[in-house]
Structures are given as structure tokens and as C-alpha cells.
């Protein structure tokens, strides 16, 4: 008897809650995990979603370039040298008769993978060392931060030029050259996050139950500072793509005949007045890619930290 009474009361309460919170789906969202909430906020941000969709399309284009491209990127069509955009060559052809649309599709492979790999290298090294320096503190922190100061006093692009000159051109060397300039920045930001997190009592609690320093740093602390690092990494993909294109432009990065966007710009620059399409399309590809990555990065930042 009493049980039934209780059940009725509970049912009523549930009904009331339902009315208050609108339909059932809306009420469910409240109980989502942190990640769920972040994804939800990101989903609501239109510009970020635009950026994400463009990036996904670009990635798909890069992956399926052999299927999508109407021509091979290095095939020369001597009848179409310097051809302007038309139905056969959508974006026209360059001075050797290569189809610019196909080259841009293939070029996305270089730019995107370069940006992603470089940013990830920076992110991992930054998180690993930044957490260590930030948590250890004291003298190690002081010394390493001065090293970072010296390191970051050299302009990143200049450093990249020097390194790729020393190592020679090529994909891997470009990755190395681009990564090195970005490392101090990511170490610095990870460390700053650690300094904030270090005073939290849950780390003291972890210490009191005998967790090792390694476990405290990388199992307890790292997951709590990783969100801002993801934002930083996303943002740095854009900058890296620009930087890598810059390196190719001055002839140091990925070498022709590889269809790299920067190299394409460089090759087209002598024809800027007669055949501007040789520069416009690779430039546009670069701009759209970097813009959408930055839009996504901005959206991620807002989604992860709704306070700002």
C-alpha cells in the first residue's frame, strides 16, 4: 500500500519535471558528459560548423584525389599551355599545361598532412614537456623557461628557413623545420595551464594516496589541461600550412613538380599579369583552408570554455 503511494508521488514528480524541462530530449542533455556538452556547444556554433564541414570536404578531396581529379597532377597537355578556366580545365592550366584543379586536389594532401603532422608534433612535445616543467616547478622550470625565451626569440619562419636550408628540401625536412619553431609556444602554454592546475587539491589527494609523480602529471593533470592545447593545436595547423606554403614559395619546402600550393604560387608568379588564374586558385585554396581551420579553432575554444 505504502509502496504504491510512493510510486504515485514519484510519477507525479516525474511528470512535473517533464513539463518544466520541455520535451524529454531536452532534459537528457543536462546529464551529458563534459565531452558531450562541448560537442553540443560546437554543434550550435554555425561558423565553426561551416569550418568543420569545409575541412572535412578538403580532407575527403585529398584522400580521394585520384578518383576526383580529371587529370594526373604531373600530366602535361601541350595544347593547353596557359589555358584559362574552361569546361575541360576548370581552373585552367599552368605554363607547362598541367591541370590546376587536379594539382590543387593533390596539393591538399601535402598541405593538410603537413599542417596536421607538424601541429601534432608540437602539441605532443608541448604537452609532455610543458606538463613536466609546469608540475616540477622550481629551478628546472626557471632554466627551461629561459631556454624557451631564447628559442622563441628567433622568428619561427626564419628558423624554418635556416633548418630547411641545412637539412635540404623534402616533406619530412619541412615537417621538422616547421615543428621546431612552434615547440616553445606550445610548451609555454601547456606550462601556464599546469601552473594554474598545480594548486588544485586533487593533485594533493593523488599524492596522499601514493601516486607516482609520473602518474600525477600524465594521468591526473594532463587530461585536465588538454582542452586548451587542442584549441592551440587547431589554430597552429592554419599557421603551419601558411608557413609551409611560404617555404615552398621561396623554393625550400616541397619541391616541384610536387603539386604543393606554395610551390604552385611560386611557379605562377611570373605570369601574374598575363595569367592570374595560376595564382588565384592555389591562393584561394590556401586561404579557404586556413580560414576554415581558424573558424573551427575559434569555435572549439568557445565550446571548451564557455566562460569567455
Amino acid at each position, binding site marked *: 500500500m505504502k509502496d504504491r503511494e510512493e510510486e504515485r508521488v514519484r510519477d507525479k514528480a516525474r511528470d512535473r519535471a517533464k513539463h518544466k524541462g520541455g520535451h524529454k530530449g531536452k532534459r537528457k542533455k543536462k546529464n551529458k558528459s563534459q565531452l558531450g556538452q562541448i560537442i553540443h556547444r560546437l554543434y550550435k556554433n554555425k561558423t565553426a560548423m561551416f569550418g568543420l564541414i569545409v575541412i572535412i570536404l578538403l580532407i575527403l578531396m585529398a584522400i580521394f584525389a585520384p578518383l576526383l581529379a580529371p587529370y594526373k597532377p604531373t600530366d602535361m597537355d601541350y595544347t593547353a599551355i596557359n589555358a584559362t578556366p574552361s569546361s575541360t580545365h576548370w581552373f585552367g592550366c599552368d605554363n607547362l599545361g598541367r591541370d590546376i584543379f587536379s594539382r590543387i586536389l593533390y596539393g591538399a594532401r601535402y598541405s593538410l598532412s603537413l599542417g596536421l603532422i607538424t601541429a601534432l608534433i608540437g602539441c605532443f612535445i608541448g604537452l609532455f614537456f610543458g606538463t613536466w616543467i609546469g608540475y616540477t616547478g622550481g629551478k628546472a622550470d626557471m632554466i627551461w623557461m629561459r631556454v624557451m625565451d631564447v628559442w622563441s626569440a628567433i622568428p619561427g619562419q626564419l628558423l624554418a628557413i635556416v633548418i630547411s636550408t641545412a637539412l635540404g628540401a623534402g616533406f619530412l625536412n619541412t615537417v621538422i623545420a616547421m615543428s621546431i619553431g612552434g615547440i616553445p609556444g606550445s610548451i609555454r602554454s601547456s606550462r601556464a595551464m599546469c601552473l594554474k592546475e598545480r594548486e588544485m587539491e*586533487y593533485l594533493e589527494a593523488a599524492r596522499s594516496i*601514493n601516486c607516482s609523480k609520473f602518474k600525477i602529471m600524465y594521468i591526473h593533470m594532463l587530461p585536465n589541461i588538454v582542452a586548451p592545447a587542442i584549441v592551440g593545436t587547431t589554430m597552429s595547423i592554419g599557421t603551419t600550412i601558411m608557413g609551409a606554403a611560404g617555404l615552398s614559395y621561396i623554393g625550400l619546402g616541397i619541391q616541384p613538380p610536387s603539386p604543393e600550393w606554395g610551390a604552385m604560387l611560386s611557379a605562377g608568379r611570373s605570369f601574374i599579369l598575363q595569367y592570374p588564374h595560376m595564382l588565384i586558385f592555389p591562393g584561394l585554396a590556401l586561404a579557404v583552408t586556413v580560414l576554415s581551420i581558424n573558424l573551427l579553432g575559434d569555435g572549439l575554444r568557445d565550446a571548451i570554455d564557455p566562460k569567455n
Partner: protein
Amino acid sequence: MALIEIEHLKKYFHVASGTNHAVDDITLKIEKGRTMGVVGESGCGKSTLGRTMIHLHEATDGIIRLDGEDITHAEGKDLKRIREKMQIIFQDPYASLNPRMTMEATVREPLAEARRFSKSEIAQRTEELMERVGIERRLRLAYPHELDGGRRQRIGIARAIALNPDFIMCDEPVSALDVSIQAQVLNLLMDLQEEYGLTYMFVTHDLSVVRHISDDISVMYLGQLVETSPAKELFKRTLHPYTKALLSAIPSMDVHQPMQRVQLRGEITSAINPKPGCRFAPRCPYAAEACNDPQKLEEIETNHFVSCCRVHEINR
């Protein structure tokens, strides 16, 4: 026999403007199975004292003994063993739980770190612990931000008792909670004490809480111990002028006995590079010339220690 004994314990922090004498020359005993309440205003070093005792801070000087064993400079394996015996419950139940760990993972961790239980033992013990502190099974995969303060603190307690410690330092465990929840958590702590024979050091600034839970009380002022005594004795007969002022701040429930507040004047002085004399002297209504000399803790009555050179004159 005293479970914990500290002698002349000091913890100094170097800050920009000098040395902060957060804990300065404290001698204290905590008997097995009893609760030592430590009271004092904010910033008087009571949390630092507790944290130094359980080795979260390295002591600057002095001796800490656990069960007669000197543990002041324990390291490595010894430290691990000691930490299993001495645990802490934190003030802020939200900050003291890793936001990325589920309740179950938080409780399981000390057991896993002990590295002597099998997987099934850990799982079973985790379940027992959560049940013991009153966390429903359905919440075992919840994250800290999904729970209320009382439940979070219960998880903090479960984590602390996981390895059957002898001593738990409770760092204002209820000050961040609602009054109704405070009572629940305090009762849980007292039940656990009875069940496992735990010894508590209960740091708080809430005098009604300390009166409720403590067997003995120590009063701190700016890093120093001014009075320590069995709780009943202290509430019956306060000897130190600071304790008098502190206890007179408890609101009286008896309308026929109006409150006699001892009002302190002046600001709390700083613990950074303090003068050698009594630190309370600048605010003390009884301050005299002799108060500028270092004070000694003196046993005035059985187990009732006071650090005041004028204690006899004042309490005549």
C-alpha cells in the same frame, strides 16, 4: 599511547617579503582513537600543520612520530607505507576530486596504488567502500560535477578510508557544505571512527562543529599553539586570553545568561618574520612587558597546556 606525537614542529615558507612562519614550534600529542580539534582563525597555519604532519609538506624542523616511529624524513618505501596509514579529507570536495575521473575510479585508485590487491579484491572493496559511505550504486560512474557537495565529500571520505588508515587529517571537511549535509557527513565520520578505531585531527574554524566532534582541542594563533586541553575542560575553563575571546564568540542559546563577548581590537599581525614574543600580545587586553619574551607551553592542569606568561594572574 599517543598515535601521533609532534615535537617542536616548524614549517617555514620563503616568500618575497621574508619567511612565513606558518607553523612555528608546535608540540602536540594525539591519542589513539581520539579526535583532536584544531581551531583558529583563517591563515593561522592549522591546515599547514596538518599537511606537514601527513607529509604533504616537508617539515622545516622538528620531529613527527607515528606510533613511536620517527617519520619526519621518511622517503621512498617508508613514505609509501606511512601515507597508507595517514590520510587526508579535504575542505573543498569539488577541487579535491579529479574532474575527469568517475566516482568509482577515484575510490579505486588508492587500492590500485597499494599494489597488493587482485583485480577482484579491488572491485569488491570499492563496492564496499561506496556502500559504506552511502553512495548509491547507480552513481558509481558519475563525474564530480554531476553530484552535490555532500556526495562528493563522501567520495573523498571513501578514498581516505580505502586502505584502513590509522589517522585521518580532516581539513575543514564540512565548511563547504550546507548545514543539513554537514551533520550527515559529521555523523558518518564519527561512525567510521567507532567502526575502525580511527584517530582524527579535525581542523576547523567552526566552533560548534569542533565542540560536537572533538575529544581534545588545540587552539592556534599565527602558527603557534596557544592552548591545548581536553574539550570538556576547555569549554568549562579557558585559560588563554585568545581562547577566551574565541569561545566567547559562540552564540549563547540561554536567554538567561547573556553573552559576554570579549572584543579583540586591532588587526591580526603577520606571520612573516614575526617578533620573538607572544604573537597575540598586540591584540591582547592583558599584554604586559613580559609578553615580549618568547612564550613557553606550560601544563597548568592535567593535560591542559597554555602558552601565556600571565596565565596565573589572568585566571585568578
